[in-house]
């Protein structure tokens, strides 16, 4: 049975501001999930706290709305314990790149097979418009009382430096393009990251739909090829090219896949090497007792497993 996009919409009233870019992200998710025909029971959307954090409630798949900045480690735990699940993280820019940037960097070292979607609106939406880590120095949005004193972090460059194997940018108002990125991100085996430009109509009057409409262009249209094929040499070349592209921000803002490397093992693969049964029988699936509640490990098995810690007493003299 193929599920239509509308099936992925929950019956919770969406309480984002009318016109918010988050609607576009959610719509693209409905459509991507539908095209991939994801089983709602095997799909988990994990979010942090913020306007973006409410996303899971609006989707009719499993939703885990966690803590500010912690969506990634929650998602990592879910995925490692049950690798058969499709796990998508939705986070704000404050969430993923401010309070949560430690986790953002760390997950890059693991290449766990999840997709991370950044709701990049330049502000802390739900706390009423303070500057987020993606807002440039000197910018004065209507929610600020004076120009931003901190500089912006570059999400694409940071993801590349952190080892992400799929790095892309989308724009919430280009739903079809974003949908395709989401599909590609989910299909990618490894940690995928999509920086989504998301206008906040209420607090950010700089990065508006108008602002992006004029600037955004599609990398693909310019023949960009993000894919690493083969050796390290090539990896470095592609990485550097992507870094260079990541610096483009001004009159022209590129969207699309910046970098993709399918040659790095996922963390799940690495775990399987350590623990051969991991993939068939991950932590969530294992049976640990019989029906009567007796442990799998009984006295005899215990003695075998821990034999190095057991001392058999010298026979009485």
């Amino acid at each position, binding site marked *: 049975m193929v599920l239509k996009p509308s099936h992925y919409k929950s019956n*919770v009233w969406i309480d984002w501001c009318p016109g918010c870019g988050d609607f576009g992200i959610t719509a693209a998710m409905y459509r991507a999930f539908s095209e991939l025909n994801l089983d*709602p*029971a*095997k799909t*988990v959307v994990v979010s942090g*706290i913020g306007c973006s954090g409410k996303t*899971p*409630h609006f989707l*009719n798949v*499993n*939703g*885990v*709305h*966690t*803590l500010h900045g*912690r969506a*990634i*480690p929650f998602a*990592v*735990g*879910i995925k*490692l*314990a*049950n690798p058969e*699940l499709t796990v998508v993280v939705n986070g704000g820019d404050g969430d993923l790149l401010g309070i949560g940037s*430690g*986790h953002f*960097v*760390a997950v890059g070292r693991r290449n766990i097979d999840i997709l991370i979607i950044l709701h990049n609106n330049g502000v802390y939406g739900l706390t009423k418009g303070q500057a987020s880590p993606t807002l440039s120095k000197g910018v004065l949005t209507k929610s600020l009382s004076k120009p931003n004193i901190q500089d912006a972090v570059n999400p694409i460059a940071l993801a590349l430096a952190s080892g992400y194997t799929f790095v892309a940018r989308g724009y919430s108002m280009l739903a079809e393009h974003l949908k395709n990125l989401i599909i590609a991100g989910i299909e990618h085996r490894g940690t995928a990251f999509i920086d989504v430009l998301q206008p906040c109509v209420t607090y950010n009057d700089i990065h508006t739909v108008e602002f992006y409409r004029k600037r955004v262009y599609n990398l693909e249209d310019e023949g960009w090829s993000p894919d690493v094929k083969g050796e390290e040499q090539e990896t470095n070349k592609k990485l550097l090219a992507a870094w260079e592209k990541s610096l483009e921000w001004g009159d022209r803002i590129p969207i699309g896949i910046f970098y993709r490397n399918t040659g790095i093992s996922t963390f799940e693969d690495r*775990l399987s090497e*350590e*623990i*051969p049964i*991991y993939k068939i*029988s*991950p*932590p*969530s*699936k*294992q049976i*640990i*007792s019989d029906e009567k*509640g*007796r*442990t*799998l*490990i*009984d006295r005899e*098995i*215990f*003695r*075998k*497993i*821990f034999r190095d*810690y*057991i*001392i*058999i*007493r*010298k026979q009485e003299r």
Partner: protein
Amino acid sequence: MSVKEANILLGGPQGAGLETTAQILTSSLAYLGYGVLADREYYSNIKGRHSYIHARISAEMIPLSLSYPVEIVGAMDSETIFTHFEDLGDGGYLIYDSSTDNRTLSSIASMEPILKNRITERLKRLGVEAKVSSLVDYLASNGRAEIVALDFPSILDTFKKRFEPEPIQASRYVSSILVGAVCGLLDIDEEAVKYGVSRRFMKKEKLIEHNVFLVNYVADYIRENYGSPYKLDNSRLSLNEMLTVMGNDVVAMAKIVGGLRYQSYYPITPASDESFFIEAFERLEVDGDSIGGIVVFQTEDEIAAITSAIGASLTGARVATATSGPGFSLMVEGLGWAGHSEVPLVITYYQRGGPSTGLPTRGGQSDLLFTLFASHGEFPRIVLASGDHIEAFYDAIEAMNYAERYQLPVIHLLDKFLANSFITMGIPDFSKIYIDRGMIVEDGEDYRRYEFNGPISPRANLGSKAVMWYTGDEHDEYGHITEDPEYRIKMYNKRMEKLDLIDKEIDPEKRAVLYGDFSADYLLVGWGFVKGVAIDSINKLRSQGLNGAYLHLKMFSPFPSSYVKSIIGSFDSDRVILVEHNYLAQAGKIVAMNTGTIIDRMIVKYTGRPIYVNELIIGIRKILEGEMRVVLSYGA
């Protein structure tokens, strides 16, 4: 002549093989059926600072506690001699390296200046020059101690001539000299030595051969020259098999047996050894077949440790994380999410000396109140503390059962004393172990994770046929956000009423255990690692005509209030004494909070070293003579 028990202390610089010494000795002794308890004391340092092992060996029982003075001090270096000469009982044996006779106290760079000053003062008062030979002479001359002077370099020379070990390794044989000396004094036979050494070096035949030689060589020398003054009685313990384990190991074993399948951690002393232990068994192989697999995940910090464990738990895996104070402090926000979202989760919490970084490699019990109230807002939790290695085993499994049965976080409190002390113990009784995963459902048309049907809603896992939502916000039955006041009250009550349910279901006598009876002259009240020393001290005092009892508190949330109140209430208030490893006597605060009974007599210790029988006995006497508060301080 032979003895029923022996107390020994072996010291040397951190990283110089003391642990090897302890492992060999413990294995040899266990092989002969003796009970051993050995505490390891060390600095927060990798190499060079003073560390020591303090052990009790018994032919009659598994020792529960330690005491001073000791019968044997074995010194790898001169710092040990200066630091511990007064720990040696009258007539005890000092084993030391006579080639260091000319070492002066002032030349020992690794010793803390404060301690150095104190020892200098002390020696001055004793009229002894601050030099190894002078101190040794002093001890020998006034009969304070027997001196076992071994010329370590020349012993090593003999050995080297025979075996030609690689030069870099020679120094690593020093520990075997000490083992040998102790084996001589206790009269441990060659077979046992061989057994102990072989277990330590597993299959490395050459190392085994060398060390067996060296140990026996020294042991023989000792027997010849000193006899075996502490020849141990034959063991009267009935165990034919013994686990020789540290507290960390015991808990790790329990978690493995109890079905743990996901453990996240961030390295921290003294918790991470537990995770390494589990990781070593991640494949769970028996006779070459895997019967499971455990993911042990080193995270980027403790926030990720707890939150990833929560994530894993949501999928139905049996999960835990293990940490110590600073790590737990970072887990507090995640803990609240777990409590609020009703997630089964075990946090194994090894207390160390606080506050802040504190005494990171020393013990303490100063985190109890913190664990009870950690995280903003109110939610149910279980806080459970274990008193010894054996309790820790069963409790670690119970903790996971409780977490899943009641769908909440369980904090299992242990401490560094337990974590880092070796013990010999029997193999657990499997008839006492069971697994309870609580109410789990599989499929889920219109599944409601927080269905209102009492405090516990049937739990479906992420990945089952149900679709569900979780949020840290107040939520409705589906797990969607709500701010409705009536719903708020219902959902809040549902959560909090778990505490009443647990209070009803878990026997109070399991949560607080009385050792001794109501006719006792005084009652000690304690928890955690205090158990052993409390019981042993009571026994000691009983032989001196004072009849005591010990109330061992095990579960602090939910607290067995009326049971505890009734026990404490049956003693005169000036005969009830808190014994704790903290300043405030925290368990006393919890007793007061829950029962209205303020216990105002207390014996506390917060130096990071364990409480010893010798000092606790004095403490008890002081309190019974009218003192209100005794602060213990024994131990270097």
